[in-house]
């Protein structure tokens, strides 16, 4: 194995593949030295595995009602107790992992590219393009995210798709700001000038040369934002504007358990723990990634 490691850590890689693999190897080693980041990585990985294998991990059906078993406290059969319709809360939390994962993935897929492109275009062209695009971005940024998402869901109508769209609308401006800042530092560098002199179009410069360099700060920011996205989605579900029953969305489950909080505390409490653990996992991972990928923050830990 020693030779494989030497090949990865070679200071003068002979191919692009070797350079890339070497870089990811170094990063993963640096990440592994950060205990909180590892905890975060394990939590996020667990979330993905639970979502993939939900039918095997759940002990009951997430929607199967059994009124004889309603509001039972946690026990050997029902690890997290049962809710007001006799559904097993553990199984619902497990299936809820799928919904949470789908929401964060879709918001990231919708918001990150939009923010990235708007920011890069604004930063690259500058002038009035920059002023207009950043003006719009700043207006969105000046609003509290949750309120913005709430107002958009109110106009679009309740439901999980609309909630995802609304959260994406509230999330993209942050990415546009970062992409613009990164682009401003890259656009005056010599290699961009060299490509431009070779006659590359603006489109080509942005897509092939600027966007790839923005990705690492983007990954950090998206990971750090995941917790906020999860909380906003849960909040929308809690108010009744996000995922609709009988979907086992964690926020909506807490909302159902609200009426029983004083006597049957587990109905509302258990899904909350899932939210806290998963959000914390993304925070740990994001913090760790920032320490590794962004040397400016390295000493702040």
């Amino acid at each position, binding site marked *: 194995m020693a030779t494989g490691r030497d090949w990865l850590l070679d200071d003068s890689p002979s191919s692009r593949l070797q350079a890339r693999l070497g870089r990811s190897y170094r990063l993963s080693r640096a990440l592994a030295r950060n205990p*909180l980041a590892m905890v975060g990585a394990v939590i996020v990985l667990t979330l993905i595995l639970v979502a993939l294998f939900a039918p095997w991990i759940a002990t009951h059906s997430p929607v199967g009602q059994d009124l004889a078993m309603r509001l039972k406290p946690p026990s050997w059969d029902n690890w997290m107790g049962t809710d007001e319709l006799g559904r097993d809360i553990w199984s619902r939390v497990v299936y809820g992992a799928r919904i949470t994962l789908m929401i964060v993935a879709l918001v990231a897929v919708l918001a990150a590219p939009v923010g990235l492109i708007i920011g890069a275009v604004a930063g690259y062209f500058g002038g009035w393009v920059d002023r207009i695009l950043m*003006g*719009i971005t*700043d*207006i*969105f940024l*000046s*609003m*509290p*995210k*949750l*309120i*913005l998402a*709430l*107002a*958009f*869901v*109110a*106009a*679009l109508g309740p439901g999980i798709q609309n909630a995802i769209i609304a959260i994406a609308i509230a999330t993209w401006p942050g990415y546009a700001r970062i992409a613009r800042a990164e682009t401003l530092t890259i656009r005056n560098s010599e290699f961009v000038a060299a490509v431009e002199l070779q006659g590359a179009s603006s489109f080509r410069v942005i897509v092939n040369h600027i966007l790839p360099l923005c990705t690492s700060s983007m990954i950090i920011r998206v990971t750090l934002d995941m*917790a*906020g996205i*999860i*909380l906003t989605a*849960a*909040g929308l579900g*809690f*108010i*009744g*504007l996000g995922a609709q029953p009988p979907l086992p969305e964690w*926020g909506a489950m*807490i909302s159902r*358990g*609200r009426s029983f*909080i*004083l*006597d049957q*505390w587990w109905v*509302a*409490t258990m899904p*909350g723990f899932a*939210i*806290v653990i998963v*959000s*914390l996992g*993304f*925070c*740990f991972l994001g*913090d760790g990634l920032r320490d590794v990928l962004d040397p400016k923050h390295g*000493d*702040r*830990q």
Partner: protein
Amino acid sequence: MKGLLGVIVAVAFTFLGLLAITFFIGRVVPIDPVLAVVGDRAPRAVYEAVRIEMGLDKPLIVQFFHYVGNVLTGDLGMSVSTGRPVAEDLARVFPATLEMATIGIIIGVLMGVPMGVYAASRQGSLLDQVIRVVGLLGYSVPAFWLGLVGLALFYAKLQWVGGPGRIDIFYDGLVEPVTGLLLIDSLIAGDTEIFVNALTHIALPAAVLGFFSLAYIARMTRSFMLDQLAQEYVTTARVKGVSERLVLWRHAFRPILVPLITVIGLSYAGLLEGSVMIETVFSWPGIGNYLTTALLNADMNAVLGATLVIGAVFIGINKISDVLYRVLDPRAR
């Protein structure tokens, strides 16, 4: 003077942008704004009348200026669910939120700043790690859930605090509203019994909000302090033999006061957002509760009015802390 003018113009543009967003949400996003008002079983004649009354037959830009004019004269439309002007409703509910958020930020500053300074002075210690995790918990605990758990524990189980609402039902309406802030109004009336009762009711929701602001403030204070403690003048002070306490609070802490003001301002504004989630849980009759009730009743005028007010206060606080920063920090002038 030129700087002041610049700030005013910037604020005006931001507010115009905010109005553009609420206008967009109210008039453009819904497929048919008229249906949102009259419902889908209204006769044709009513539909047309409302359409013209709302000015929807005019071009969008004219509608927008009409809307801006209305808002500037304090007309936010009528609320469908309360049957009163939205502006009047908002003025009535806002003090409750202000009271809760203010106590929340006081808790956050009083606990968060010392925690951050302490964590930075013992970087890497167990306590530093704990404070770091608390800081991250502020980003990962749903506010409404923490409120529910708090109610189950401190109200139902331990009975340390009062239940939902601003005050016990038999005290309700006894105090003449002067400021709308119940704690201050009861003091003005000289009624300590009501003051204490109101205090037990506000303690839990304000503490929950306080947790989120202390998490953020502690995190930022720690990071600012670490920057300062790495500076050479701190080493100089230590070499001179200045005591560690003085190094921390006099030498390192003073320069971070100015950026801290911005952080506290941001956190205060953020509590407005947090209160939207908390108020439903605590049946707190503030702007958050008003907004969520309006959302569930699809009462668009009320939703947009509340969004506008929260957005405006949010922008206002941010701009004020911005200006304070520039006034207080000679380098930023």
